[in-house]
């Protein structure tokens, strides 16, 4: 049970003056249950890549396997795939259209042909999981704040109970508080539902705290792929492609450079603090 991408290429507007090679020979294996971060500079092909995971874009060449079956096969059940791989687009609140929040969240499961009771059960469950208060359920989605709208939109995908949840820059345009709230909810979801979560972002800081694996994209290619501490070791190369490692990485390298016995692989503020305490204890 996994997603496998082989030699995937994608070219926008092929054969015109506006041709754009957006993905180059991408090979990835995304096993079940992982919490994966996809990171890259604007225009590096992150959004293009994730739209291949549920078949919205079809690779110019290469193949995508879902649970071992090639999704470009003749007669592959595309709509079923889209319910299994839930894709939350960037600014998902722009897709809300129903008269009230609850009905909007029901749209996805209803399209799966489920019974009305099941549809409602899933909608409640999804709204609960994104942490939206019950008093908002019967409001028009357009009365809500930006962060609340985004939760509703994410619930709309969750209600389809996907096996893989892909979020394209879910924190774009939110304030720090809203950003942390959404990311915490996503982390909780991953823990509760044991689903694969793929989180797209251009901020290392966001991603480093949550994910167990980072895929770095640059100019349509996969540049690095590994655990956060492995990837951050390349912090100098990351800078060259317009990305920065988390601030603690720089701090730890500076301290190590001055002779402090700290762990330069620390990726979060907590880890860094522990390591610095330990180093201080040793010195004194």
């Amino acid at each position, binding site marked *: 049970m996994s997603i496998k991408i082989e030699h995937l290429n994608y070219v926008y507007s092929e054969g015109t003056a506006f041709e754009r090679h957006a993905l180059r020979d991408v090979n990835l294996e995304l096993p079940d249950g992982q919490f994966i971060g996809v990171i890259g500079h604007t225009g590096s092909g992150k959004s293009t890549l994730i739209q291949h995971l549920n078949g*919205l874009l079809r690779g110019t060449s290469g193949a995508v396997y879902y649970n071992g079956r090639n999704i470009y096969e003749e007669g592959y059940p595309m709509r079923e795939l*889209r319910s299994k791989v839930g894709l939350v*687009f960037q600014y998902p609140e*722009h897709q*809300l259209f129903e008269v009230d929040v609850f009905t909007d969240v029901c749209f996805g499961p209803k*399209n799966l042909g489920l019974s009305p009771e099941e549809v409602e059960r899933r909608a409640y469950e999804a709204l609960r999981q994104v942490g939206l208060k019950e008093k908002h359920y019967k409001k028009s989605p357009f009365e809500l704040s930006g962060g609340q709208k985004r939760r509703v939109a994410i619930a709309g995908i969750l209600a389809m109970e996907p096996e893989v949840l892909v979020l394209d820059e879910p924190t774009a345009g939110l304030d720090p508080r809203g950003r942390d709230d959404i990311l915490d909810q996503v982390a909780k979801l991953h823990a509760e539902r044991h689903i694969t979560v793929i989180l797209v972002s251009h901020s290392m800081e966001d991603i480093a705290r949550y994910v167990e694996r980072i895929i770095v994209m640059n100019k349509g290619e996969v540049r690095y792929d590994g655990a956060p501490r492995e990837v951050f070791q390349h912090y100098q190369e990351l800078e060259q492609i317009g990305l920065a490692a988390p601030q603690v990485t720089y701090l730890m390298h500076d301290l190590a450079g001055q002779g402090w016995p700290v762990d330069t692989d620390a990726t979060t503020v907590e880890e860094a603090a522990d390591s610095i305490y330990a180093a201080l204890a040793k010195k004194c």
Partner: protein
Amino acid sequence: MIRDITLGQFYPADSVIHKLDPRVKLAGTMVFIVSLFAFRAPEAYVVATLALAAVIRLSKVPLKFMLKGLKSILMILMITVVFNLFLIPGTPVLRIWKLTITQEGIETAVFMAIRLVYLIVGSSVMTLTTTPNSLTDGLEKALRPLKKIHVPVHEISMIMSIALRFIPILLEETDKIMKAQMARGADFDSGNIIQKAKNMVPLLVPLFISAFRRANDLAMAMEARGYHGGEGRTKMKPLIYAKRDKLAYLSMLCYLVVMFLASRSGLVERLLGL
């Protein structure tokens, strides 16, 4: 996928034709079209062909793009040719079952086809080498005299350029919303007409909201930057004729004179008579 259609119009290249003042290109297109219909002699078409070929060559736009516009009128072209071929009375040349093709029919059909093709290709030269914005700029300036009779020229051209600017944005937005709803299991392809219309709701509602939001934002942004209509408004890049523009007008005049002389010369007839 949707983006291809809109961007297909303007073809960016570094050429003399691209650099010409949009007013010159508007006038040139008009002169060319009028000349096609004003002169009927075969010599005139030789001149028109040469002129068109020269301009296309200068524009550095591949011929493929020039001819793209013809696809859309292929049907009309065929119908025109067929009707002219069979319905014009005159000296019979060929007889197929009950239909006769006449000498005059062939002539008219050929001329009509050439005219239509040149009309489309000629205007394609303009749209392929001029950005929509500079085209509306040119229109505004060219139509300025109409202000005297209280035609809101500036407002009209502003509306036009904003509308043009929004077309690709809204198409992109449509593409995005469609994909987002498809990710939620929406189906835009199957079902009967009523079903299909119903299925459009999840696309149209967000699209309208987005269009209004954008319009609102734009109005705010314009207001914030002191926009107050056309009165006393200056331009960052005012349209001023350069030397090449004057040369272009001169070439147009030459073109008309040559065409006039050529169509009077009877050259083709004499050549055929020999």
